[in-house]
């Protein structure tokens, strides 16, 4: 199949709009040919997962686009970087790594990207609308945009997310197109009258991520979530154990008001039952230690803590009053942090050990003071990746149990 280019696409490719646009279009064309897209389509926005420093080639690429006078053509948000630019000194890194890592964040701004530095761009004023075509990187952001918002993106990654932003175009293929968004595999939650607890959504996410393969999952039988943060947790977990870019939850997500709509009138290719034991087993795998183990830190906010989550956490901190012995790190977007500061919501909270972290995340860079103890988290994604990334032991629990454990100094879970 030959890729059909518009006049403007061709003009970019021919270098009439500068060398950076030409390079971006050339890469986008190679990608689009490889996936068999017939043409490109306009996008309304992009989210770039390119600010974590992984090697010189990544930085060279952005620098070359800057040198060529390149600018992003659509509103473009940035994922986390290696630094908390709001709280200098929080990240400890050798100078040889620090210089290029800081430059990588800065160079993206010179291309006209927004200084959001968040993995939850859907919490910012750049949140897309239902049905909008976008090109996003970062697995949790992709699954949230597709599933919870109903915007349309494929899983874009390295280089190609930025090429979409630089051209304002994406391949007309995959999840950008209605017919490819239908559910393929049905998961029936076989738990009678389930409590809409945070861990239920995490557990279901972990389970469907592992069992879906490349088929779009549809979940039936979920309780109505308390808020979209529970769907954020489900999607992030599913994108952690699998490659899920879109899920439908019947009666909950916008393209699945009924089972029939979720499958666009087709029959599921397979049906899988999720029992209480399946959920419990998926959650149990996240913890590498038993109850009672000493706690070194708590890490919340992966993906980045929303304003609503802060409004649940802050009263909990005041009530349980954990003292400052155990640090409670909370990863959040800088826009959310600014809003909290303007509201005066964080005043005095450091007495409870609270340490807000912006622009980055506690599992991608060196922030934690101690790596020798157990870190508690309410995030399925953090619990999955942190042991490999930064070498900590993890105990997964509901947010309330994380705070209770910080107060007790050891892992406390469940009713008491």
């Amino acid at each position, binding site marked *: 199949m030959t890729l059909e280019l518009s006049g403007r696409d061709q003009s970019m490719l021919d270098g009439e709009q500068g060398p950076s646009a030409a*390079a971006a279009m*050339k*890469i986008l064309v*190679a*990608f689009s*040919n*490889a*996936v*068999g897209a017939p043409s490109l389509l306009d996008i309304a926005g992009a989210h770039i997962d390119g600010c974590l420093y*992984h*090697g*010189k*080639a*990544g930085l*060279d*690429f952005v620098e*070359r686009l800057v040198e060529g006078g390149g600018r992003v053509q659509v509103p473009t948000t940035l994922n986390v970087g290696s630094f908390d630019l709001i709280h200098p000194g929080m990240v400890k890194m050798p100078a040889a790594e620090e210089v290029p890592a800081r430059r990588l964040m800065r160079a993206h701004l010179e291309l006209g990207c927004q200084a959001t530095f968040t993995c939850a761009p859907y919490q910012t004023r750049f949140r897309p609308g239902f049905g909008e075509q976008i090109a996003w*990187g970062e697995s949790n952001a992709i699954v949230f945009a597709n599933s919870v918002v109903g915007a349309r993106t494929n*899983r*874009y*990654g*390295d*280089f*190609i997310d930025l090429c979409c932003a630089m051209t304002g175009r994406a391949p007309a293929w995959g999840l950008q197109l209605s017919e490819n968004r239908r559910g393929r595999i049905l998961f029936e939650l076989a738990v009678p009258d389930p409590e809409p607890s945070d861990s239920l959504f995490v557990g279901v996410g972990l389970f469907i991520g592992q069992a879906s393969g490349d088929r779009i999952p549809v979940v039936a039988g979920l309780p109505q979530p308390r808020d979209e943060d529970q769907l954020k947790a489900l999607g992030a977990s599913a994108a952690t154990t699998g490659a899920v870019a879109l899920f439908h939850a019947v009666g909950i997500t916008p393209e699945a008001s009924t089972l029939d709509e979720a499958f666009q009138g087709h029959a599921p290719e397979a049906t899988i039952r999720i029992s209480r034991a399946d959920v419990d087993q998926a959650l149990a795998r996240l913890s590498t230690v038993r109850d009672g183990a000493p706690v070194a830190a708590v890490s919340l906010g992966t993906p980045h803590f929303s304003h609503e989550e802060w409004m649940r956490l802050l009263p909990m901190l005041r009530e349980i009053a954990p003292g400052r012995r155990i640090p409670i790190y909370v990863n959040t977007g800088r826009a959310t942090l600014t809003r909290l500061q303007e509201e005066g919501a964080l005043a005095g909270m450091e007495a409870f050990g609270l340490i807000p972290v912006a622009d980055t995340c506690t599992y991608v860079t060196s922030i934690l003071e101690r790596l020798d103890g157990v870190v508690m988290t309410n995030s399925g994604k953090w619990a999955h990746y942190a042991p490999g990334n930064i070498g900590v032991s993890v105990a997964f629990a509901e947010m309330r149990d994380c705070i209770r454990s910080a107060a007790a100094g050891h892992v406390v879970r469940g009713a008491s």
Partner: protein
Amino acid sequence: MTQPVAKDAVDRPGTFQLAGEADGAALVFSQPLSFWGGIDAETGEIIDHSHPGLGQNVAGKILVMPSGRGSSSSSSVLAEAIRRGTAPAGILLERPDPILAVGGIVAEFLYDIHMPLVVCDIAGIVSGDRIAIRVGEEGEAIIQKAQ
């Protein structure tokens, strides 16, 4: 760099995802290999413990496998490996792979190094075969295997 190919070589046609010429010994896997988490870009060594190629080195080889696999971060790893000279000399796949294509084309753009990425029939190629990738008159790929 291009070496003469044995006279009794057998040609097979292919389609370039990225055009270029290369020579090297085939390194053949029936199981796709993810560059991210699968290859150390500093050395070219295969580090994926679940892959049968664990411990072998892709640098300078003609890597032959059915398809690419895994995370989009593989694009960065391939581009970085090409920059460092630890990448395969060329890659033959049965099915096109967008992630490897992006990594290769970015390296081409940045460093002017052309690593051919070819879609072709890979049956009958075994590890150690001398493989030459050539550009045909119509711009098509020609894969020559020394007998």
